[in-house]
């Protein structure tokens, strides 16, 4: 097992109370698996991704364990996590375009970062350049300032830097959101290539755009309002989802070749529940077409078929 997350709970502290963004999440990730983490805005997927590597000021660890390659990740301890960051677990942030210090040349920035982590820059610079070329950049980038690079170039540079030390787990947070469609495809394919070449063992690709996941992910984990809904191989999620939420999600996507007149896009009526004081039991209850009284009790996230996990009373029967 590469990653094992068990009943993880991470809340946000606010003046009005705790926002229960990640509220009891359990899943596994195998070696070499690229898992897409999908869901609506505000469902907690970014929080989940971040909690594995970097708890920001307002995030509060409540409970649960995370194991990476068999060894526990002390995510509640900021200082202790430093040992693991970058080397065992890394992240490509959502704000990759502005993640580079504007007053430092790329080469110098990377050198200082590596040295501060006790890694020799000189030993790694050749590999660094090689990977930059892999993503379509040249070694000239080393002598440039971030503002001399375009958005896409900065994104790719950050991708290379984040994976330079070959981490076991990479968290890619909405890395295609700010790009145009053709660049999205290129970047997504780069991710797969990184995995195939062994730069990264496993990946969690966080996005609200399922179409990207359909191209690169091995499995997809669907999240809703702080809880997990369904996890299955990509083809299963896309073609035969079982959770009512996933079903609705997939059917709300436009299909290629289908015209509006033939089949209308269906949305999901209602809004996700507020996580400040979430409803008891299954959080999709209010919008679910097959909800019953049993759904007042939270359904466990368990395996229904091999490799297919689900949190629903009605379907998992």
């Amino acid at each position, binding site marked *: 097992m590469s990653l094992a997350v068990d009943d993880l709970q991470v809340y946000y502290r606010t003046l009005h109370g705790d926002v229960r963004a990640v509220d009891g999440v359990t899943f596994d990730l195998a070696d070499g698996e690229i898992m897409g983490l999908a869901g609506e805005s505000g469902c907690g997927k970014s929080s989940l991704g971040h909690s594995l590597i970097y708890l920001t000021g307002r995030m509060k660890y409540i409970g649960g364990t995370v194991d990476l390659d068999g060894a526990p990740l002390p995510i509640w301890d900021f200082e202790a996590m430093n040992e693991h960051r970058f080397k065992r677990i890394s992240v490509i942030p959502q704000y990759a375009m502005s993640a580079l*210090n504007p007053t430092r040349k790329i080469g110098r920035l990377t050198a200082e970062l590596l040295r501060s982590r006790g890694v020799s820059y000189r030993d790694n610079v050749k590999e660094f350049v090689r990977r930059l070329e892999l993503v379509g950049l040249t070694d000239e980038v080393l002598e440039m300032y971030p503002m001399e690079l375009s958005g896409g170039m900065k994104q790719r540079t950050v991708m290379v830097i984040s994976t330079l030390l070959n981490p076991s787990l990479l968290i890619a947070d909405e890395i295609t959101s700010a790009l145009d469609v053709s660049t999205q495809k290129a970047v997504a394919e780069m991710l797969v290539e990184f995995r195939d070449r062994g730069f990264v063992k496993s990946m969690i690709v966080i996005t609200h755009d399922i179409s990207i996941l359909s191209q690169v992910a091995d499995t997809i984990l669907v999240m809703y309002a702080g809880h997990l809904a369904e996890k299955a191989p990509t083809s299963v999620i896309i073609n035969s989802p079982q959770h009512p939420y996933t079903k609705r999600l997939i059917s709300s996507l436009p299909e290629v070749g289908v015209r509006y007149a033939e089949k209308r896009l269906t949305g999901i009526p209602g809004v996700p529940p507020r996580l400040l004081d979430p409803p008891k039991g299954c959080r999709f209850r209010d919008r679910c077409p097959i909800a019953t009284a049993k759904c007042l009790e939270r359904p466990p996230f368990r395996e229904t078929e091999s490799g297919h996990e689900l949190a629903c009373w009605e379907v998992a029967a």
Partner: protein
Amino acid sequence: MTRYLLRKFFIYCLTFVAAVTIDWSIPHLMPGNPVLTLMGRIQIQDPQVAQHVYANYMRSFNLDLPLWKQYYYFWVSLVHGDLGTSILQFPSPVSSIILHAAPYTLGLLVPAILLSWYVGNKLGALAARRKVLDNTLLPFGYMLTATPYMWFSIVLVWVFAITLHLAPVGFAYSPTAIRGFNTTFIFDLLHHWLLPFLSLFLVACGGWAIGMRNLIIYELESDYAHYLEALGAPRRLVRKYAFRNALLPQVTGLALALGAVIAGALVTEIVFSYPGLGYQIYRAITNEDYFVIQGIFLFIIVGVLIANFIIDIVYVIVDPRTRIGMEGGQA
């Protein structure tokens, strides 16, 4: 880059012309006649002689010429370095008064500005680091920066010079000192220089410290800081970047703060009777010695413009963004 600097240079020249024009025009716009003031000082009894002297003065100050000609001659004499003659310290030319006083003012200003900038920034960075330091240094910093320079000087003089006898009360050197390049004189000079310098230095420090502290907090919240932390970079690397990036606006801040520090230096000199430009201005104002006032004003303007230009150059060198942006470097 040269275009940018040339553009700045152009603005400074424009400013200089504007300043000279203002300087020349103010006495002409103000009520009163400087010559009459002069006459009042001399008190001539005989009206015929008075008339004669009046005409003479008007001629020597060019006041009998049409305005535009006066303006032209003003520029001419300016180019020749002739800033007129002092009325109070007649017949000393204004330029020589300025040249004798300027070194003292610069001797206070330059170290005070540079050191307060450096120390203030370091202190601000320190305060941003630890909550404990922040809670003590911050209110102190605000008190200092809100303190009027002259009051601070007054308190310093009263406490340390007059009450505790730790420093001289004023002047640049003791009346009994023998001038020259010997160690006793130099020590004496420094002893007299210390309190006025401290007064300027401490008040200015407060402002820089607070500014830096705010800037660093802002930088520490930026995306690049978060990214580095997510990659496990130690705090000191993040702080180092934050500090260096926060310094940039402080460099431009230097140019903006010049005016305030100069004003501070002027009044500090008054309190300490330190024979710099401030002291001369004070005497000139009290005695309506207009040419001295105008001359010192021009001198200050030129100094500020030069300093601004130097700071502009330094900023372009130090901030890669402006340099690259100007050379049009975008992929």
